[in-house]
């Protein structure tokens, strides 16, 4: 760290943690820029930490003195020197990074060479310098993971590929219609590069046109998907209502960001749960799913397409800025084991009307334009349940409202029962999470359980409808704690659905939860 980084990030470091300081950058000029009155190494503010001072600036320059780079250019490689040192500390392979640098700077090989040299020099420093116990290589044993083929994947890639796999499972064309917005645009970029899978992408003139074109695509017999972030989804609201009323499949991906309004576009938050579950005019139920991690986006995207096409309903898939941009290792599934749920369009004119329903799923018949004998008219005006024609009949509106509700609630029968991630009904406190809080919650619960504390973890993928057994699971707990990166949204839903004394643990700083924060909150409640 240089003085500026130290000033900003020191509060994030646990007491007793290790600080590696770039001593070459600790000078009066940088103290002033960072807002330090004096050298922080000498005012006692770092007494709680273990300090290692390394003159990274100088060492990087030394390593690159024959590279032909100017001093300024050489100093830009300092991050790679530091990374090399960290790789040594944690026993990580340098090769993937070297390969990445070679391909990243393919057009400027001298830059690639210099960065690789800096990476190697930082690594060599760790190996050879005698820094004492403060800077020793940590031995991190390989995590126990199932055998198989693995890869790294970002949330945006996993979600895009999941949509492709979902459309393939449904045997339909994927038509992805979107308008650029941070942090959702990476989906449009990824899918625009997948034309060899038959994917059609459409950059619309605005958010509204994007969702309308996606609905048009579903009307014509494709899988219409639109994607945005909270403010963009707000604009799509009216059209989503039409898809609910006309009962057409639609997937809406919301890469959530801090709100309200423009909020903090590059900061993560999970505060669009209310918007997803409730945010429309009229009684307008739809399906809401949430991905827990980058890799999970793949499965959730397939599930979104499955439910949308099977039940003729819009599905909102909640991701967030953190999930979209983060990457994690992923056990690559065998393509032939992916779910298959081929759609059968209605072709039988006998007794057909557009709101004829499957008695089991309550999904209406999907008859696409081009089918002879099934010509029909649909729209956003209330329809007679027995003909699909416009109807203002009082009893009919009650019946149709009930049908739309029951169709969506009935999906609870078609989703897995809620299971514990860790712990079970014997524990005293349950943490209930959704979305990208999965990582810190599961680590916190793991740590606490190792200490013998009676803590369980439930993580929800299906936000609406909720799993059928969730209420029963929750009712067995003395304490229910719901960590969310919002001001308390899932907690309200759980309280209203199940009348349980769930309590919120809420954080809206634009940063993910820390494991320690969750641990502390649980301890405080168990000790109370």
């Amino acid at each position, binding site marked *: 760290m240089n003085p500026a980084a130290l000033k900003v990030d020191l509060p994030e470091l646990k007491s007793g943690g290790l600080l590696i300081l770039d001593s070459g950058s600790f000078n009066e000029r940088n103290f002033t820029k960072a807002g330090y009155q004096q050298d922080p190494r000498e005012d006692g503010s770092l007494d709680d930490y273990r300090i290692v001072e390394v003159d990274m600036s100088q060492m990087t320059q030394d390593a690159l003195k024959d590279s032909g780079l100017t001093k300024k250019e050489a100093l830009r490689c300092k991050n790679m020197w530091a990374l090399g040192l960290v790789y040594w500390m944690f026993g990580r392979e340098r090769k993937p990074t070297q390969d990445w640098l070679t391909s990243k700077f393919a057009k400027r090989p001298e830059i690639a060479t210099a960065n690789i040299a800096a990476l190697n020099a930082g690594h060599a420093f760790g190996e050879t310098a005698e820094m004492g116990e403060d800077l020793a290589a940590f031995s991190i044993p390989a995590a126990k993971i*199932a055998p198989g083929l693995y*890869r790294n994947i970002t949330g945006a890639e996993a979600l895009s590929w999941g949509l492709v796999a979902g459309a393939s499972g449904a045997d339909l064309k994927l038509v992805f*219609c979107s308008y650029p917005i941070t942090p959702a645009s990476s989906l449009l970029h990824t899918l625009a590069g997948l*034309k060899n899978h038959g*994917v059609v992408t459409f950059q619309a003139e605005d958010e509204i*046109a994007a969702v309308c074109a996606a609905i*048009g695509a579903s009307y014509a017999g494709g899988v219409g998907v639109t994607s945005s972030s909270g403010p963009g989804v707000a604009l799509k609201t009216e059209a989503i209502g039409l898809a609910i009323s006309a009962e057409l499949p639609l997937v809406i991906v919301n890469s959530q960001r801090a709100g309200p309004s423009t909020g903090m576009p590059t900061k993560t938050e999970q505060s669009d749960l209310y918007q997803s579950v409730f945010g429309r005019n009229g009684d307008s139920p739809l399906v809401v799913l949430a991905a827990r991690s980058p890799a999970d986006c793949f499965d959730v995207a397939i599930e979104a397409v499955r439910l949308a096409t099977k039940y003729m309903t819009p599905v909102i898939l909640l991701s967030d800025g953190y999930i979209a941009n983060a990457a994690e290792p992923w056990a690559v599934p065998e393509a032939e084991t992916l779910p298959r749920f081929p759609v059968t369009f209605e072709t039988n004119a006998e007794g057909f009307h557009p709101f004829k329903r499957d008695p089991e799923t309550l999904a209406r018949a999907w008859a696409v334009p081009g089918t002879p004998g099934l010509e*029909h*008219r649909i729209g956003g005006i209330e329809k007679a349940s027995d003909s699909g024609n416009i109807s203002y009949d009082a009893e009919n509106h009650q019946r149709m409202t009930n049908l739309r509700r029951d169709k969506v609630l009935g999906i609870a029968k078609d989703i897995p029962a809620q299971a514990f991630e860790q712990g079970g009904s014997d524990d005293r406190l349950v943490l209930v999470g959704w979305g990208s809080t999965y990582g810190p919650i599961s680590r916190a619960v793991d740590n606490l359980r190792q200490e013998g504390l009676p803590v369980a973890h439930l993580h929800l993928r299906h936000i609406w409808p909720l799993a059928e057994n969730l209420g029963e699971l929750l009712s067995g707990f003395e304490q229910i704690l719901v960590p969310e990166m919002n001001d308390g949204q899932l907690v309200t839903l759980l309280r209203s659905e199940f009348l349980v004394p769930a309590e919120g643990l809420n954080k809206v700083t634009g940063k993910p939860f820390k494991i320690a924060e969750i641990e502390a909150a649980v301890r405080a409640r168990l000790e109370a």
Partner: protein
Amino acid sequence: MNIATPAVKTAKDYASDQEVRWCPGCGDYAILKAVQKTLAELQVDTEKTVFISGIGCAARFPYYLSTYGFHTIHGRAPAFATGVKLTNPELDVWVVSGDGDALSIGGNHLLHVLRRNVDLQLLLFNNEIYGLTKGQYSPTSRVGTRSPSTPGGSLDTPVSAGSFALGAGARFFARSVDTQQKDLPVVLKRAREHRGASLVEIFQNCIVYNDDAFAGFTDRSVAADAQIHLEHGKPMLFGKERNKGLRLKPGRLELEAVTLGEDGITEADILVHDETDRAMATLLVGMEPPSLPVAMGVVFCDPAPSSYETGVLAEVDAIQSSRPGTLAELLTKGNTWTVS
């Protein structure tokens, strides 16, 4: 051999079983009749035809046709239609809209569907008023229009559908009048024939809230002198005696109406309509009585080599056929490792 000869469809076969419910005397009835007649003349397949509308009186249109129909939300019909064409370009798509729907709340979508040149027909029923919401002034209402929302008369300059379309880069613009049952089907057929976005502005009388708004050029007594019916390659003549014509004012990029035989004017002085001339089209759509006649018929038609969805889908097809992707290849591309 047991092949049924397809029965010849009449205009009635293009009507749905739903009762038509516009105000008695509404111009929409006449347009509906002209459209059904056009569909019958072309013997279009009902199953391959989709009418898409937004919100407004005009937007009820799809319910009254025996084709596929989608009554969507206010102003957005062009966006739905774009999604339909990107998914199934074989479908013949018609968008039905009014002046508020297309030029106010939906102005953005009209702009983009025209410039993208999606292959569809847009019928713009222009009655210069909001009918369904009971008579407020619309974006095409003339300055001074008194309405419930502008009791002192409207102040803002109306938008011209033709100027808007040409400015947006439309490649087909035509005009007609609800009651001109001979001309309207001709224009509709030309619009359907055009590969790309075709906008047809239809002056439509709202008998309740804006009656006779267009009488100044549609009334029998004045129509011949107040309208010019354009035909490609023909001199731009009009008038009861067909003795009036259009020419450029000497020294200006401006049209003027002249009379044959007066001031030495002969037919050789009269401009010939070239429907591919965009600059001339911008002059023609701006013509207003009393000094100039209202331009009717196909004002502009200059097809592009290909429509938007054709281009998009051709690109997808070309890439997919040259290197078809499989899921297995997608999931394993790039850097992978095996854990044993």
